[in-house]
């Protein structure tokens, strides 16, 4: 029972790490970025390359992946996303679906269609006994990273100037601009951080979710689910939704394996009907 809860929390943390960036950018600019999974996939492939060919240590690779993915997102934003901020949601969906397709093709070309194996460092392999329950070391690490990130995000938002600017931009863009806040640049940086986190999440997730070129398509539903149920633009909402989803999915599979996939979709539809703006309401960042 405890193991199931633990597994669920770990899974939820992973989902949170990957989805939080999407939630904030969606809440801030109203930009539907379906290609968010591409950043996670990039993180995964970077991990495979860094720890494989380049021979870097796993722990050293992680911050590098964060920075590299963030940088890449800036390129994408400047060249493509920026043109569609004021455009219809349909166009944003189409653009980002196009990006997904290109990314999938590029990944297939560069890495082949098969699953990518990744070597974990010894210290993270196997299980450790905590209070009588056998817990996976890797998942403990994952949860630790997740908590650290959450704390950093909350601290960053509440205590720093930049965090205040982000909150202002999410609450009311026009007034923020009137106050002299360069919303465009705030958004760029926020997108970078969010994408960097997605890359980090993707890298950490290779061991749990697997990695192949179709990753962005396969996992799209889960990320969108977390964001929509949690409420776009709300970090605690995303965390809550990710936890709920992670635990429900894990527990569901253990106790009611026959119903499995149904639960997710049915629950999603029900939740969306009850809370059209997400569990914790709209546009309250923290």
């Amino acid at each position, binding site marked *: 029972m405890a*193991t*199931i809860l633990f*597994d669920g929390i770990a*899974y939820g943390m992973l989902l949170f790490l990957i989805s939080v960036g999407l939630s904030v950018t969606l809440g801030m600019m109203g930009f539907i970025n379906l290609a968010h999974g591409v950043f996670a996939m990039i993180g995964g492939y970077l991990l495979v390359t860094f720890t494989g060919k380049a021979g870097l240590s796993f722990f050293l690779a992680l911050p590098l992946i964060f920075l590299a993915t963030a940088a890449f997102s800036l390129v994408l934003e400047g060249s493509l996303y920026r043109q569609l901020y004021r455009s219809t949601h349909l166009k944003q969906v189409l653009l980002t679906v196009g990006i997904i397709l290109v990314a999938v093709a590029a990944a*297939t070309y560069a890495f082949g*269609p*098969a*699953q*990518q*194996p990744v*070597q974990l460092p010894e210290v993270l392999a*196997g*299980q450790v006994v905590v209070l009588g329950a*056998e817990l*996976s070391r*890797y998942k403990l690490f994952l949860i630790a990273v997740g908590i650290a990130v959450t704390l950093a995000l909350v601290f960053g938002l509440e205590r720093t100037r930049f965090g205040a600017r982000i909150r202002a931009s999410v609450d009311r863009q026009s007034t923020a601009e009137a106050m002299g806040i360069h919303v465009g640049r705030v958004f760029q940086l926020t997108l970078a951080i969010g994408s960097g986190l997605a890359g980090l999440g993707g890298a950490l997730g290779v*061991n*749990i*979710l*697997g990695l*192949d070129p*179709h990753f962005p398509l*396969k*996992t799209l539903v889960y990320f969108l689910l977390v964001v929509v149920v949690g409420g776009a633009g709300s970090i605690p909402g995303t965390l809550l939704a990710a936890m709920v989803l992670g635990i429900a*999915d*894990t*527990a569901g*599979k*253990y106790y009611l*394996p*026959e119903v*499995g*996939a149904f639960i997710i979709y049915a629950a999603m539809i029900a939740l969306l009907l009850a809370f059209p703006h997400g569990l914790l309401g709209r546009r309250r960042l923290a």
Partner: protein
Amino acid sequence: MKLSLVRGAAALAAAFACTGVLAAGNTIKVGVIAEMSGTFADFGQQITNGAKAYMKANGDTVAGKKVELIIKDATGPAPDVAKRLAQELVVKDEVDFIVGFGLTPNAMAVAAVASEAKKPTVIMNAASSVITTKSPYIVRTSMTLPQVTEPMALWAWKSGVKKVYTIVADYGPGHDSEKAFRTAFTRAGGEIVGDLRVPLKNPEFGPFVQRIKDAKPQAVFVFMPAGELALGFMKAYNERGLAKAGIKLLTTGDLTEDGIIEALGDHALGVISTHHYSMAHDSPENKAFLAAYAQVSPQRPNFMAVGAWDGMAAIYEVARKLNGVIDGDRAMQAFKGMALKSPRGTLRIDPDTRDVVQTVYVREVKKVAGKLYNVEFDQFPNVKDPGK
């Protein structure tokens, strides 16, 4: 509505122009329908490479005629596309044989075309039992799921395993495998203590494997399609220490097939599986096959490539028997009862069912010269498809 769609219509018309295929009386045309793109692209690659390897090793002429491969992409599990491609191959390209099929739905859709056009159709991979019953013009050179699953159940019983938990992927082949194992194992006297079906889109195996561990069986029988499900399961199995808890892992060769075994890494060591082909099979035919395949592709070949290799071998044999004049009914007569020396061992085509009869090996994953292989240590000869 001022739409000058003259251009549109003209574009439509022009684009329809087909790349002309030279009508030749001196070639035997083999139309290959395989999944070359999408998530199953690997299947198509293996099949076409296997066929090409055969032609490289044995020349592209037989009975005085040149053999030509016409490769079409089914794009994945797309029976409507497969059927259309089959019809086009018959009508436009005028092929003599239709071959390929990595996936069952694509093969099923083509059955009607095979019957109506009386074209010999060789299934080089798809593994559902029913396929060969759908048309008298279908012959198979790969294997069927029940055929490779039953020996696993029998071997498990033989080696003293009495309680087994089954876990399969929740789709057609998974259900078939589960049923085949259960029937054979309970018939031998064993007990299935539990069964689980895992959704195809499942990323996380933890809870499932935990459930199995809690049930404390002696072994767990697994069927997962190769890819992330196989990998995911293996990781969870190792992470939870099921081997240490005394629960053996039994599976079919799909989980440890030669194409992906490297990706599983050391997780896979010690896994016991049953299948009809392993790269480590020691025979001159297999050595020749591996050498020929290496010339076509640097990737490791798997059982799908062998299915294609043998399919081409069967076609060459038929061509020789009929002196190059391919007639549907006479070709099917020639296929029936055919015996081939395949890289896998011996292969016979059952005259009644047109399905494959072969030896199923029991293998264990071991490291040989630093790489992972399925090393054969036991076998069940002349296994027919129990599904019929």
